[in-house]
């Protein structure tokens, strides 16, 4: 195939040209900056080769916020296009690419990494561990995600983005209707990132099962860590289904196979089934850690232990299990017949039972508590009424025959944004504010935080409430525009206003991050919120080995109990022992780069490049296997120095 520069680079679109130029300048600026400030070594030793879960967590969150910006811009572009009837701000094809990348990015490259970031940062600290079970694998997970994110994101400037919707239904997503690299980006980038996610699931299951501080029984684990167990169980069982679905898609598109084609026996409906067998559990993969975050925040700022610990654990495990039994509700209208539709209606509605139990338990936690409305608490408290509405519309959608009218309309769009934003995004923002002082040693400004919250929540409701009505009026999702005589204009105008308010809130958050870095209230206690769990027992900044002295855990909310009894984790000179820590390594990053090479080759069907990348990956894995890396020991002197930093006063010591 003759190489054509003007199809390789996306041309003909002024906005994309603008993006290409800014990205080029941005890349140049970064290179220049790093060189000028002589920070290349720092970048390599501190970040690219790190296996420290805290740093990996920070990198995940940074990427997630960047992706939130990208996905948010996609959203605003769509909302502009839909504000008035018959606008031509975006042409159909560009619009199709934008809603596809918006959905894929928000779920897989924003929500997942944001949560993975918080999980990485917090879980080992919460369970009193010094690291995750497999630090090198953890680094691999991050860099594979990073490469998958990178590969997916360059699509709009090189080759063209996927454009068949984030659900990629066949046969539209097949080469009969959409040839070219677009959908290939989706199949390959998600495959690469998915490997990272599976590895994270395994990593955290083993970490939480096997690396808890002495004395911490399973039923003493903080609720956020329990939510990570539930999430990881779903990951292990669901991501392989996506792996296969994407592989089959790749075979169809690249090698002429007939899994989902219109001819030669292919079955497009098979894709829908496989995709949603993964897809529905996926939304619980993101929502369960979100629930865990809310449990931590609500109990901390109600000054009261979480109500119904046992039920909260059971309900999450129930949700994890039941999430596998609902997938066909995504296609009630595909003609499965009344028996199948009835079964899935019931199984879908049934998930609201354990979810409802959780909501009641959160309310009972706040009951008779002493609630302080800090920014994290605002996000958690705001979640409850908003999620109730979103969840209620989910129950309504679960009723199959009613869904025959709701399906694929804006009613559906409103529902899933309601639950995903109120559930997951609120948790990400709340968790960010909550654990920010642990990450960076300063608190995000409260006033700016409150402005962010209120503007975002109000904007969010203004944006999505009208969409329920638009759906009932007959507006379907993925429409590029609409006729003026349909009477949909007013509601669309309102929705756009709401979307821009959310954008404003995001900008305030970004400003908050910048402002607080320079002028924010510093926290040196390590426990600015009077927290209840062990992550707050560490000093700030957290030493790379986390705990010099491991606690002997006696129950739930161990740190709260310790403070009440005047105990602390201050270590004495005699107690200091060497601590074994893993070595940094560049292999995770380099292997991931080879994944990029292989992936890029597959996207453009340049098989020589794919094979080269594959060889690189194999070599990297082999070298790692042959490597004798026993880690290193943190010396007693270093620990004494870190711990005794301010012997005799409150600051900087493990408490």
């Amino acid at each position, binding site marked *: 195939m003759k190489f054509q520069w003007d199809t390789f680079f996306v041309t003909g679109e002024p906005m994309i040209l603008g993006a290409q130029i800014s990205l080029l300048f941005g890349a140049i600026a970064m290179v220049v900056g790093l060189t000028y400030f002589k920070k290349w070594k720092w970048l390599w030793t501190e970040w690219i080769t790190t296996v420290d879960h805290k740093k990996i967590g920070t990198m995940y969150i940074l990427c997630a916020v960047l992706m939130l910006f990208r996905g948010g811009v996609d959203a605003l572009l769509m909302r502009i296009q839909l504000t008035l009837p018959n606008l031509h701000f975006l042409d159909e094809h560009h619009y199709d690419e934008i809603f596809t990348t918006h959905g894929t990015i928000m779920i897989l490259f924003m929500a997942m990494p944001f949560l993975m970031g918080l999980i990485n940062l917090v879980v080992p600290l919460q369970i009193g*561990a*010094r690291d995750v*079970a*497999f630090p090198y694998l953890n680094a691999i997970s991050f860099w594979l995600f990073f490469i998958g994110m990178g590969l997916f994101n360059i699509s709009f400037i090189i080759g063209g983005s996927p454009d068949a919707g984030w659900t990629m239904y066949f046969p539209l997503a097949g080469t009969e209707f959409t040839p070219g690299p677009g959908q290939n980006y989706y199949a390959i980038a998600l495959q690469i990132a998915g490997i990272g996610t*599976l590895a994270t*699931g*395994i*990593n955290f*299951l*083993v970490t939480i*099962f*096997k*690396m808890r501080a002495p004395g911490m029984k399973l039923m003493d684990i903080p609720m956020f860590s329990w939510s990570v167990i539930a999430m990881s169980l779903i990951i*292990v*069982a*669901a*991501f*392989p*289904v996506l*792996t*296969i*679905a994407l*592989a*089959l898609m790749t*075979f*169809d598109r690249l*090698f*002429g*196979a*007939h*899994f989902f*084609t219109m*001819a*030669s*026996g*292919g*079955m497009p409906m*098979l894709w829908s089934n*496989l995709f949603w*067998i993964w897809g529905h559990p996926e939304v619980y993969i993101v929502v369960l850690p979100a629930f865990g975050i809310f449990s931590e925040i609500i109990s901390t700022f109600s000054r009261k232990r979480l109500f119904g610990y046992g039920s909260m654990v059971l309900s999450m495990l129930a949700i994890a299990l039941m999430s596998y039994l609902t997938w066909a509700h995504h296609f009630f209208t595909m003609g499965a017949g009344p028996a199948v539709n009835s079964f899935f209606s019931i199984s879908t509605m049934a998930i609201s039972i354990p979810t409802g139990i959780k909501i009641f338990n959160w309310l009972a936690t706040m009951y008779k508590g002493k609630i302080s409305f800090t920014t994290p608490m605002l996000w958690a408290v705001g979640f409850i009424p908003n999620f109730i509405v979103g969840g209620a519309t989910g129950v309504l959608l679960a009723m199959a025959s009613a869904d025959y009218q709701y399906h694929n309309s804006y009613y559906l769009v409103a529902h899933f944004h309601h639950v995903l934003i109120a559930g997951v995004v609120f948790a990400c923002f709340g968790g960010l504010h909550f654990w920010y002082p642990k990450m960076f040693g300063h608190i995000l400004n409260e006033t700016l935080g409150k402005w962010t919250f209120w503007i975002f929540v109000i904007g969010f409701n203004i944006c999505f409430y009208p969409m329920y009505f638009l759906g009932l009026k007959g507006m379907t999702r993925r429409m590029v525009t609409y006729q003026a005589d349909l009477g949909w204009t007013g509601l669309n105008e309102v929705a756009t206003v709401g979307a821009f308010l959310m954008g404003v809130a995001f900008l305030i958050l970004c400003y908050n991050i910048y402002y607080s870095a320079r002028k924010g209230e510093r926290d040196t206690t390590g426990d600015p919120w009077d927290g209840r769990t062990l992550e707050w027992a560490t000093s700030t900044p957290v030493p790379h080995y986390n705990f010099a002295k491991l606690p002997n855990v006696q129950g739930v909310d161990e740190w709260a109990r310790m403070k009440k009894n005047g105990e602390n984790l201050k270590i004495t000179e005699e107690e200091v022992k060497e601590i*074994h820590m893993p070595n940094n390594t560049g292999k995770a990053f380099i292997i991931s780069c080879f994944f990029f090479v292989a992936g890029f080759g597959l996207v453009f069907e340049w098989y020589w490049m794919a094979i080269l990348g594959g060889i690189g990956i*194999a070599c990297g894995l*082999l070298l790692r*296997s*042959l490597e004798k890396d026993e880690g290193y020991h943190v010396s007693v002197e270093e620990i004494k120095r870190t711990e005794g930093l301010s012997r005799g006063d409150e600051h900087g010591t493990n408490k």
Partner: protein
Amino acid sequence: MEQTNKELPLEYQTHQDRMTILAFWIFLGAEIALFSTLFATYLVLEHRTAGMFSAKQLFEAPKVMMMTFLLLTSSFTCGVAIWYMRRNNAKQLIGWMLVTLLLGAGFLYMEIAEFTHYVHEGATIQTSAFLSSFFVLTGTHGAHVTLGICWALSILYQVMKNGITTTTARKVFIIGLYWHFLDVVWIFLFTLVYVKGMVG
């Protein structure tokens, strides 16, 4: 967390190794989900032959039986290798593992010959949904076997160089788990693809 328990088999003695083995079991759980999806896909597409080759027309019982014999025997020899590992006999460990890998290579040789034969007949991955799913399902298993052989060779090299240590014992144990797992998958393949296809 360096709790070393000398009463356990060598590969279970250190905490890190115990965690690695647990992680591998969980990974095998994920592999079960993976192969289940492939099997489900195959069973859905099994009869969609586009009027071309069907299972009955293609599969040959004697060859399949031979492949099964080779792979199942290799699982046994793998077990023997572990048995020797437990008795600290590196030489026998390596020897029996090499037999295992040889049998595995024999299995692969036959499978590649089978695929090439089908392709020569005109039954390719592009012919029909049935053939696409057949090749991808059995091919994925075959690719796992291939990867396993390469992986095992690198581990055997490490045993040769470093002897049987907690680390090499753990690595050998894990590749053993992997190999047995692939054997179980083959049993399902044999039954649900070949036997079902030839008889059903």
